[in-house]
């Protein structure tokens, strides 16, 4: 008796470790950052020298609370830290300060959007519940070199928020959508940078399967330390297939901790349940229970940005944007805010502004960024609007000129290119280049009548009158020639139809 994969339902829960965007480490005043020489960013507290004590970094606490507010959690009245004891050379005190019983974030949810049937169509939305998030310290890095081992404590003590979901995810696509949404929420609120290349977001992935319709959860495995969204997706696919294969072969799933080899796209067993550590948790006596005042919560509440999908809904429903443009804009808070400033300067045509932003502006910004990267050999920077030569109100000005028929769409492209190069106002470029369209009806009437009278176009006129609509276009060329291309094409079309009756 065989069954198809669709008879099985996969259940996924994620534990996402995010390095918070803070100046100092979580329990020490030492700064931290990426790409430093080994053990450059340590101090006596980070190294756990005898007699040193942890002091909770307020910035890390506030970023954690802000995350809680972003996902709509009820911020607890207090939180506390516990010691997780285990021996390993990358762990300077041989215990890690974490939060076991009183985490800083309890509950909350993250809205996710699944891919639609095409890029133009919005996919299904769903909410993934957050069980809790706790603030802990990262550990150092141990590496083996020749006959010895080297340890770098730069990462030790970096503030790490571990975000734990309920087992609400049901597919690799949902896991991927969740992580994308989570990254957007974290970065847009300034909680974390989530640069996966720098290890700022790492994920443990719990997977189990059960017969579709069954209530009881299957035995789960935990794949640890996934450092990219694609690794999470691939792990879910791999682990689902493996578990189905095991169960259908009549075997059972062992509760185990697994690793993932991204190069081979294969999972492997790290340790089974019997090898599980006894971490001997107990409340850290060096850090008193932290009370979280409602004043702090109220102050941080003001920093919560509009959520990704609330913004997207507003763009589609209130501003009339197509889904494609809205979804591109909301992914980047800076871009969305830039767009909204432009709309504020010219509220009549949000869609026109959105087209310019999502097509021309992003394209040119990416091109200029890539050029910079070629010169410096640096990692290509994300699209940065800080250095964008065009300001929002300037783009609004360009759209307004087009909407008012002062320049044609074709001319607007030329003006945009110039604006991006020089940062000048659209109207200044139009005037300097003499691009202003001729919309003087009296003058154009004379030119139109002169062209109609030209025997060279008599054949086209006859065809038009015989019902060939397109034949009228043959008359537009000569008119444009006589006006050096400045004639308002809309007006010309109207006049031709009027005179040709």
């Amino acid at each position, binding site marked *: 008796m065989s069954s198809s994969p669709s008879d099985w339902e996969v259940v996924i829960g994620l534990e996402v470790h995010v390095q918070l965007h803070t100046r100092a480490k979580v329990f020490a005043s030492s700064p931290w950052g990426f790409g430093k020489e080994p053990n450059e960013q340590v101090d006596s507290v980070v190294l756990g020298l*005898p007699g040193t004590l942890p002091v909770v970094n307020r910035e890390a606490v506030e970023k954690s609370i802000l995350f809680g507010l972003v996902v709509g959690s009820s911020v607890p009245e207090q939180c506390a830290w516990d010691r997780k004891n285990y021996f390993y050379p990358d762990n300077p005190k041989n215990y890690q300060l974490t939060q076991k019983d009183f985490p800083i974030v309890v509950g909350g949810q993250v809205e996710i959007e699944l891919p639609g049937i095409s890029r133009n169509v919005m996919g299904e939305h769903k909410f993934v519940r957050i069980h809790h998030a706790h603030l802990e310290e990262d550990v150092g890095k141990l590496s083996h070199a020749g006959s010895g081992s080297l340890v770098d404590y730069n990462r030790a003590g970096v503030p790490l928020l571990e975000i734990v979901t309920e087992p609400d995810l049901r597919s690799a696509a949902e896991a991927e959508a969740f992580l994308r949404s989570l990254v957007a929420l974290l970065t847009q609120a300034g909680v974390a940078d989530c640069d996966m290349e720098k290890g700022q977001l790492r994920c443990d992935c719990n997977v189990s399967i059960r017969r579709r319709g069954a209530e009881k959860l299957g035995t789960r495995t935990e794949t640890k330390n996934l450092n990219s969204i694609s690794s999470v997706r691939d792990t879910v696919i791999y682990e689902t297939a493996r578990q189905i294969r095991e169960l259908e072969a009549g075997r059972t799933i062992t509760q185990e901790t697994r690793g993932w080899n991204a190069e081979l796209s294969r999972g492997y067993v790290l340790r089974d349940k019997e090898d599980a550590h006894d971490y*001997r948790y107990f409340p850290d006596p060096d850090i008193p229970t932290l009370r979280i005042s409602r004043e702090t919560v109220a102050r941080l509440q003001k920093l919560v940005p509009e959520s990704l999908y609330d913004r997207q809904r507003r763009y589609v429903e209130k501003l009339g944007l197509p889904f494609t443009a809205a979804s591109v804009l909301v992914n980047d808070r800076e871009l969305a805010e830039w767009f909204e400033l432009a709309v504020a300067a010219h509220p009549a045509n949000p869609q026109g502004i959105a087209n310019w932003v999502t097509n021309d502006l992003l394209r040119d910004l990416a091109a200029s960024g890539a050029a910079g990267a070629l010169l410096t050999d640096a990692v290509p920077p994300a699209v940065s609007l800080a250095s964008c030569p065009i300001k929002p109100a300037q783009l609004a000005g360009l759209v307004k000129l087009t909407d008012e028929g002062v320049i044609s769409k074709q001319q607007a492209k030329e003006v945009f290119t110039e604006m991006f190069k020089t940062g000048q106002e659209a109207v200044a470029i139009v005037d300097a280049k003499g691009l202003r369209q001729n919309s003087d009806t009296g003058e154009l009437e004379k030119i139109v009548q002169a062209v109609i009278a030209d025997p060279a176009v008599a054949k086209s006129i006859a065809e038009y009158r015989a019902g060939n609509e397109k034949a009228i276009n043959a008359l537009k060329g000569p008119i444009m020639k006589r006006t050096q291309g400045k004639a308002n094409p809309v007006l010309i079309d109207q006049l031709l139809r009027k005179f040709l009756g």
Partner: protein
Amino acid sequence: MADLLHTLSAAELGRRLSAGLLTSRTLCEALIARYHLLNKKVGAFTHLDERDVLTQADASDARRKAGQGRGPLEGIPVAIKDNIAVKGQPLTCSSQMLASLVSPYDAHVTERLRAAGAILYGRLNMDEFAMGSSTENSAIQKTFNPWDLACIPGGSSGGSAAALAAGLVPLALGSDTGGSIRQPASHCGIVGLKPTYGLISRFGLVAFASSLDQIGPMARCIEDCELLLSALASADARDMTCFAVADRALTPAGDAKKLRIGIPKGFLGKGVGAEVATAVTAAIDFYRSQGCAISEVELPSADLAVPTYYVVATAEASSNLGRYDGVRYGHRSASAGTPVEMMTNSRSEGFGAEVKRRILLGTFVLSAGYADAYYMRALRARSKIRAEYLAALATVDVLLTPTVPTPAFKVGEKASDPLQLYLEDIFTIPANLAGLPAISVPCGKSGHLPVGFHLVGAPLSEAKLLAAGRLFESAHGFAHQQAAL
């Protein structure tokens, strides 16, 4: 005059320094001479950098001459227990594990002493990582009781107490987790005070049991004890358990003759030696004669204190001492292997027997399946003990008991019986569990060995404890006492 300097109190030395009758250099030279004469006999100091001491003394004298003296401790030597960090000096905790460690930073109390102009004078022997009551657990050397060199000085701050009793230094810092200041103070006939938890920053104190540890002053008289306490107590942002409460603790108490003194019911019966009982009873009678109200108080959970302490303290210690693994500093095993094997070997070689015993005990009481029965239960007992003490201290000002049930015992006498040794702290442990201030005041002799009584007060009642001690001290001859060596 120089041959008498070691008998003077810090306060008196301060007055002579201020009056220009004495220089810090003269004082330090006299003490260094005495160190050479006696330290081998007593074993109090494990390290003394004479040149550094004299450099500090000269700097102090220069400051004073320039009118920039920093207060009553200017130029006065303070010896420091070897678990409190002084930049550039050893920080061994009397352990092989840290035998090679030189501290790269100052403890908060060290900064305070420097700011007060004190001379940071040498490192004092202790039980390894402050675990012990006789200083016999030092991996470096033995310390002997100056009143009887065949006896232990108490511990773990045995070096501090012995140095004072031998006249090697006028002031010393100790640390107290279960009695480690007060018990050796009692055995050596000096004054030792454990402050309210949180009054003095623990930054720079090598942790034994973080929720119980406090640094405290040790001296030969109440006045000196108060002088040193005032210098140490201040807020410190580097210790989240340290509070800005120094002013409250040090506000002068009212008339000591009006103190209400509680005597815990049955305390004098618990294995208390006859001569100790006599001396402490005489102290109670003295206070009664001065007009103090003496009453009996009930502390029904007091019997839980010792077992509770040995669960809580060892649990925290097992975690606190985890960091000594040979990876970053301290003893590293020469035997090769994987990094984890190297850590295991370093710990096996670096720690002494008592430290290992407590790490094992602490690891056990925290382990899965046992934590509820031991650690969590101990936390509940601790809350109960604290509640009972606070309730009692709402009806009386201080609780009076012996500091230790019996006088100092012979070196080696209890070395093979840790359980009997743990009972040395039966009267002192509750103050640590409850975070309360407590003091040991010399009150007599058992044979030729000193005996002290013990006062516990409500949080931040240090001034009351000192006032009570002063009232007794001024009527008796036990202040400034030194053993004849």
